[in-house]
Every structure is written in structure tokens, then in C-alpha cells.
């Protein structure tokens, strides 16, 4: 039911994007809120639905399939998880409520320039009067463009990691905005002695805890990629049935049938790997969960570019155009495969945990 509704709702995303009227804009986010998608993971005591990860993964699949540009994984899955983890008391309830209703949207700012996928921050926060002063830089902040605030990991004076909420309108925050190859907007920011009030520190946390929250976002990104790849396979099979060369549909050529079938098998085995991860996610301890997520990540992104690239190839010239959707799946997975770690990163984590 959730899947059918989402598929119908998202169906027009690619067409809307082509017309350039901002499917990635705030109206789209409001729509997600109205459908309850932003509240899915928020706990019930904060006005959320307290839903389980499976619902989120279904939505993520549909968003990948529809090439949605909304920063759902960053600003709904990851941001909600971080605030729920770190904030406390009334502030936690207020923030989660505002995020679930779509009134406020935050973007996690975890990664830093020149530090690849390391989560230990070099951004520093020192006490300043009653509040804090932030300096340093963050990069590749998905969903950062147009967000109300950033969720910034920073090193406190005593070497502890804190999570800060920094409002984007702060004049000492210098964002650089650019589009990524999947057409999403991203920002890098510099914090030049940013003065923050005492309540900007949502709480202190650990890198391990952040990595656990990230694992939910990672699974969601695998699901998004699975949805994208399955759609790319469908589009390709359909195209080969309609395109005529040498006096017959291209689908008549067995070489092409077999290529599509290989793509299908690879995509379908990603689904199996995802189900394995979900099963472990519900029951397993931290190590098991981590290993299952990394395993799913490697399975997904070892195959993703090959499947999506083959989809382009089997279309011939038209596959290379931006007017036609199939190439956008390739561009999407090229960004996804290096968000929250890449194949080698997760292979290493898997091997460490496999003992």
C-alpha cells in the first residue's frame, strides 16, 4: 500500500524536473510531510509514527526508481536519527516535531574536506560566553542547499564530540553551493568563528553512535539504488521491444536478451542482500548489523554502475541524452556509491568485523 501510493505520488518527478520547476524545492518537501513520510522514523513520543526501517526502505526504493531529488535520506532518515540520538528533553521533542511536520529541515554536516569518509571531526567548538564558537569546514553536505540548519559534528575543548545545530542564516557561515552529477544540490561550508547560543549544542555523542545512525541511512541508500536499478532494467527491456533495427525489434536479438537478463539477476541479488541486512538489522547486535550493512553496500555498489551503464549502452545514442531518463540512473548511482563510504571502505569494515 505504502509502495503503491508512493509510486503514484512520485511518478511525475522526472517530468517535473525536466520542466525545471524545482521538484527538489520546498513544495516537494511539504508534500512528503503531508504524506507522513517525514514522520515515519520519528519516535511516537515526539509526534512521529515510530515506524520501522522497512517502511523507510520501501519509500527509498520508490524515490530511487522515480529519480527523486528530495534529500530524504539526509534530511529525514539521517537527521531524524541524529537528533533522536543526541538531543534531550523538550528540545528533542520540539526539533523532532518540527522536522516530522516539515516545518524545519536540517542537513547533517559530518564529513570534512580532505578527510574522505572519516567521521572524527576536526571542526572545533570552544566555549564563548554562555555559548560556543565554531570554526573549521564541512564538505559535501547533501540537502544543505535550502536547509534551515546544519547538524554539525564538532570537537569540544575536552576532546569530546558534540552535535551542534547551526542556523544557516548565521553570517559567519560561508556556504559554497554546487550541483552534483546526479543533479542534486550540495554545499560545502566554512565556519569562521561562528558564535552559537548555549542551546546550539544538542548533546554529546560518540563516533560509534553516529556510525550506527549512519547505517540506517546506508541501508536506505542501498534501497534507493535497488529501486533505481530495477527501473533501469525495466526501461531497457521496454525500449528494446519498441526499437527497430535491421527490420525487427532489437529485443529479437538473443545477445541483447541475455544482457538484460544479467542486469536483472544482478539487481535482484541486491534485493536478496538487502533482505539479509534487514533481517540482521532487526535482531542482531552492533557488530552483526554493521557487517550486514557493509555486506549489502558492497553487493549493491559493486554491481550498480555496471547495471546502469549497460542500460545506457543497450539504448545506443539515446541512452546518452539528458532528455531520456535512463542515463540519470547511472549518474545517480555514481554519487550514491561514494556517499557514507564507498565499496573499498565497506569491504574493509566487513573484513574487520568478519574476524
Amino acid at each position, binding site marked *: 500500500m505504502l509502495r503503491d501510493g508512493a509510486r503514484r505520488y512520485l511518478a511525475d518527478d522526472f517530468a517535473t524536473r525536466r520542466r525545471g520547476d524545482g521538484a527538489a524545492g520546498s513544495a516537494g518537501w511539504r508534500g512528503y510531510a503531508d504524506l507522513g513520510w517525514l514522520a515515519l522514523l520519528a519516535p511516537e513520543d515526539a509526534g512521529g509514527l515510530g515506524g520501522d526501517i522497512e517502511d523507510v526502505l520501501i519509500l527509498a526504493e520508490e524515490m530511487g526508481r522515480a529519480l527523486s531529488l528530495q534529500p530524504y535520506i539526509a534530511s529525514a532518515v539521517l537527521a531524524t536519527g541524529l537528533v533522536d540520538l543526541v538531543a534531550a528533553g523538550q528540545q528533542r521533542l520540539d526539533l523532532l516535531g518540527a522536522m516530522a511536520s516539515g516545518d524545519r529541515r536540517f542537513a547533517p554536516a559530518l564529513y570534512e574536506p580532505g578527510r574522505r569518509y572519516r567521521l572524527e571531526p576536526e571542526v572545533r567548538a570552544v566555549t564563548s560566553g554562555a555559548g560556543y564558537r565554531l570554526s573549521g569546514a564541512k564538505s559535501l553536505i547533501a540537502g544543505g542547499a535550502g536547509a534551515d540548519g546544519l547538524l554539525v559534528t564538532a570537537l569540544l575543548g575536552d576532546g569530546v564530540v558534540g552535535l551542534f545545530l547551526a542556523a544557516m542564516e548565521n553570517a559567519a557561515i560561508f556556504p559554497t553551493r554546487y*550541483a552534483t552529477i546526479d543533479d542534486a544540490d550540495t554545499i560545502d561550508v566554512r565556519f569562521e568563528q561562528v558564535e552559537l547560543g548555549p542551546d546550539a549544542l544538542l548533546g554529546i555523542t560518540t563516533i560509534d553512535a553516529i556510525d550506527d545512525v549512519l547505517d540506517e541511512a546506508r541501508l536506505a541508500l542501498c534501497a534507493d539504488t535497488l529501486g533505481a536499478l530495477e527501473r533501469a532494467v525495466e526501461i531497457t527491456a521496454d525500449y528494446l521491444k519498441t526499437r527497430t533495427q535491421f527490420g525487427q525489434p532489437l529485443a529479437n536479438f538473443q545477445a541483447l536478451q541475455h544482457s538484460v537478463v544479467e542486469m536483472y539477476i544482478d539487481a535482484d541479488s541486491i534485493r536478496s542482500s538487502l533482505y539479509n541486512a534487514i533481517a540482521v538489522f532487526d535482531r542482531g547486535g552492533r557488530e552483526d548489523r554493521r557487517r550486514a550493512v557493509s555486506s549489502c553496500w558492497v553487493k549493491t555498489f559493486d554491481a550498480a554502475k555496471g547495471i546502469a551503464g549497460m542500460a545506457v549502452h543497450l539504448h*545506443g*545514442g539515446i541512452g*546518452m541524452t*539528458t532528455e531520456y531518463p535512463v542515463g540519470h540512473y*547511472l*549518474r545517480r548511482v*555514481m554519487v550514491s556509491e561514494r556517499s557514507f563510504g564507498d565499496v573499498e571502505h565497506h569491504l574493509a569494515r566487513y573484513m574487520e568485523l568478519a574476524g
Partner: protein
Amino acid sequence: MKLAFSAEDEAFRAEVRSFLAAELPPGLARREAAGFHNKRATVHPWQQKLCAKGWAAPNWPAEFGGAGWSPIQRYIFELECGLANAPEYSLIAMSMAGPVLCRFGSPELQQEFLEPMLKGDCWFCQGFSEPQAGSDLASLRTRAVRDGDDYVITGQKIWTTDAHMADYMICLARTDAEVKPQAGLSMIIMPMDAPGVTVRPIDTIDGDAHVNEVFIEDARVPAHYLIGEPNSGWTQAKYLLGHERTHNAYLGMLRRYLARIPALIDDELCRGLPAAEAGEYRRRHARLAIDVDALEWSVLRVLAGEEGPALGAAASAISIRGAAYLLRAADLEMAILGPQVVPRFGPDDGAPLVAGAPPAAAGRTTQYLYWWAATIFGGSDEIQRNIIWSTLFR
């Protein structure tokens, strides 16, 4: 088979190298290394330098102003240009229209076009593919009808590289609809500014704009612009597509990747690349180098004129593996650079850099995406496989 570069070949290599070191403008080489498609104005000065040296057309006969090199020398030149990040220029004129004119053109056409081509003053595009005629090229529908001293051309071309900056198209058109498809085609030089010719750019996923649709409505072309005899276009097209038998190995480009990847790995170690991963990327680099060494020998075997039926299939095999290795090389670079490669490329402003990223990160996704096109154009992988089967095993 024994084959080694002679002392003369090595002397030639040294000469090419020092010429490139002295004359290739660094700005141009940087643009090329980033993978940005060239604009006519940016490569023109380079072509003029090569022209002055007599090296502008490596694969034309000397009598038409070509370099007059042996196949091995041509190959060395291509490789050194690749390593030095020298850009290609006026590709269709130099490697397609030019050789066809040298071989099939009338003295008047040779007189009119070859010298301006050499100087870079006259650019061509190749108008073969049509919306309904891609792999099945012989089914193309664009017509050229004789009317007095003219041919009148009507139809539509698509995927025409560089049409937006070309002066002329070598247009493959149907001049006889009564015979079997291959037998009724002719190759005609069509001025792109002829009334009735409209060029519409096509945006491609790599972020660049280099292919076009060309709409042709009753464009009038002087009859003597038809190359050779009427209805001999298929022979000429096959000659053209087969002319650069070994060009599609992309060896210059592959050697360029192989040469710069180790430094890229070292560099990324300072930007958080874990040492164990660096080791993995070094192994991938070595595997690619081993494959490219073999590819190079496949090319050398063709150049040495090794006999036998395998020779006919070799160009097809080389082109399939060349494109696959390019994708692997570009993918490896992206993997090494990690998250820094994600910014989208735009033809005018280049690619923005992620904070802290090295300049080498710009344009990486562009190149990777473009190499998927190399599995499609000039005869797709599947078409090449068909050729190999029918040459060797049928």
C-alpha cells in the same frame, strides 16, 4: 612474432617528445587532461603549429600534405600525444573526411578542401546516423536528388558530433531508392550554412554538449560536391570507418591514465585514503597495465601486417577492449578520488571542486560517462562482435 622498435623509431619518438614538450601550450594540455571537449578556437593554435611542422595530418599521404609516416610512426605519434595531453583537433576532417577525399575525391575537391582542413580553417562533421538508422546504417532515409547542377538534400541526421562548429558535413544520403539499400548511397559534402540546414544541440549525460540533431530541408549543394561516383557511398563509408583500424584502441588515452594514476594514489594518501585501499588501487592499476600491454601488442600485430583471417577481426576486438579499458581506467580514477569527484560538469564553467579536492578531481565523472559512448559509437560492441563472428567462425 618478433617486433621491436628500430633505432629510427626511437629517434622519431624522441623528436616527437621534444616537440610536444616545447610547443604544446600548457593551458591546452590542462584542459585536455581534465577531459573537457575542445572548442574550435582553443585547439586552432595547436593545429597551426603542427601544420607548420608538417605533422597536422599523420594519416594522409605525403602528396596531400600528410606527414607521410609509416604505420609505426603514426602509432608512436598518437601515443606520445596521448601521454603529453595533446588534444585532438578537427577530428572528422583529419581522420575521416580527409582520407576519403585523398582516396576518392576529384582533383577539384582535393584542391578546394584539403589545405584548409590541414590548417584547421575548415571543420567537418560526419552525417551518417539517423533516428531510424543507427546500427542499421544502410537503412538511412536522407535523400539527395539531382536537380540541374545541384543535389537537393532532405532528411534528418542525429548524434552528429561537432555539427555546431563545423563548416561542412560529409553527408551519407540516398541517391537511388530502387536498388538494395547499400547500393543506393552517396557521400556528399554539404555546407552547414546552406539554407535549409538547422542544427539543434543535444545535451548528453556527461555534461558536455558535443552531439547534435541536424535537420535538412531542401538544402542545395553543387553536384560536384558528390564524392566519387554516384551510389558508391557505402564503399567510401566502409573505407572511412575502417580507415583508423587501430585508433579505437585509445592507446594514447589509456597510457595517459596509466601514467598519472600512481601519483594520484600517492596524493590521496594525504587526503585520508587508507593505505590498505591504496594497495588495492595499485593492484587494479597493475591489472589494467597488463591488459593495456596486451592491447598494445594487438595493435602492433595489426600494424605489422600479420596475415590471416584474424586480422580482419582484430580492429573490432581492439575497439571492444579499448572502450572497456577506458571505462575501467576512468572508474579507477574516480575510486581513488572518492567523494571528491561528484560535482557536475558544465561545458562553460568546467567542474567546481569540492572543498579541499585536488584540481585533478575536476571532470572525472564527465570522462567516465563519456566512455560509455565509446561502447556505442563507430559500431557498437555488439556490432563488432557480430563482425568478429562472421569473419572468423561463420
